[in-house]
């Protein structure tokens, strides 16, 4: 990743501004994600602190095979899981909320007629032609929409689509099968897309 490399070099060289940039970019997301693994804010704070310490200490060893972001989030997931296991009263994640069922329809059935056609055409999302990303306005809504997802869906979409971890490692991190992880991801993505569509059409 070209942008990453310059930042990595600066981080290795002791450039404080570079580290401040990294913290500003990811600290809040790391904190939210940590909170889905452990039971209290205080524990999440510790997990994130450990993560940043590991980043500071480990940046020389970072091989740049993944993006800096993915590397960062991988460290967080490891720290969070270790911490969750160590906490004597930690309840295994899968029993905090019922795991997503693999059976049953994964899309909102009311969007379709009984013969499986669209009731109304799906909403068109505003896209910036230069970047091929959602418009600034919709991107602004995106984080909020993700925050309102059920916890397991939020975890999976953060890990897969925000942090860039791959399917098998996310399945492992959550203690579910790869297939189940994919079902959760599907539900999360379609929920987010539908929420943005609702927003666009209400405007």
């Amino acid at each position, binding site marked *: 990743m070209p942008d990453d490399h310059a930042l990595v070099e600066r981080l290795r060289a002791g450039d404080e501004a570079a580290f401040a940039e990294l913290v500003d970019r990811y*600290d809040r997301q790391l904190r939210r994600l940590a909170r889905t693994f452990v039971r209290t804010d205080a524990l999440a704070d510790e997990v994130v602190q450990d993560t940043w310490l590991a980043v500071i200490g480990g940046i020389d060893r970072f091989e740049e095979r993944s993006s800096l972001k993915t590397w960062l989030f991988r460290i967080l997931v490891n720290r969070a899981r270790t911490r969750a296991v160590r906490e004597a009263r930690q309840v295994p994640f899968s029993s905090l909320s019922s795991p997503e069922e693999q059976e049953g329809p994964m899309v909102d059935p009311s969007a379709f007629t009984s013969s499986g056609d669209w009731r109304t055409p*799906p909403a068109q*999302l505003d896209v910036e032609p230069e970047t091929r990303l959602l418009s600034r306005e919709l991107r602004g809504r995106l984080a909020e929409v993700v925050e309102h997802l059920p916890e397991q869906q939020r975890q999976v979409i953060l890990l897969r689509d925000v942090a860039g971890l791959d399917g098998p490692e996310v399945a492992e991190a959550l203690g579910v099968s790869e297939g189940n992880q994919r079902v959760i991801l599907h539900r999360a993505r379609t929920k987010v897309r539908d929420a943005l569509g609702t927003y666009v059409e209400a405007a």
Partner: protein
Amino acid sequence: MGFLRRHLLTCRDCVELVTEYEEDALDDRGRRRVERHLKICRECTEYVDGLRVTVRSLDALPPEPAEPEVRERLLALYREQRGA
């Protein structure tokens, strides 16, 4: 999934399969069915395009600056260990 035995996918089927499709988790037959449906269905194509741009955009979320106390504390740690 019984609906896979039908020859043609409905829109609902197609949307249900789209993540598996994107993840290359469908067999050849399933993949061809989804592709054939998307080729002829403007609405599903719109839906899937919307999903894709959403996923791309999740990779590029606008950053929210860290809490000032948190940033200061972490910068102090960084300075201590790596300060130039």
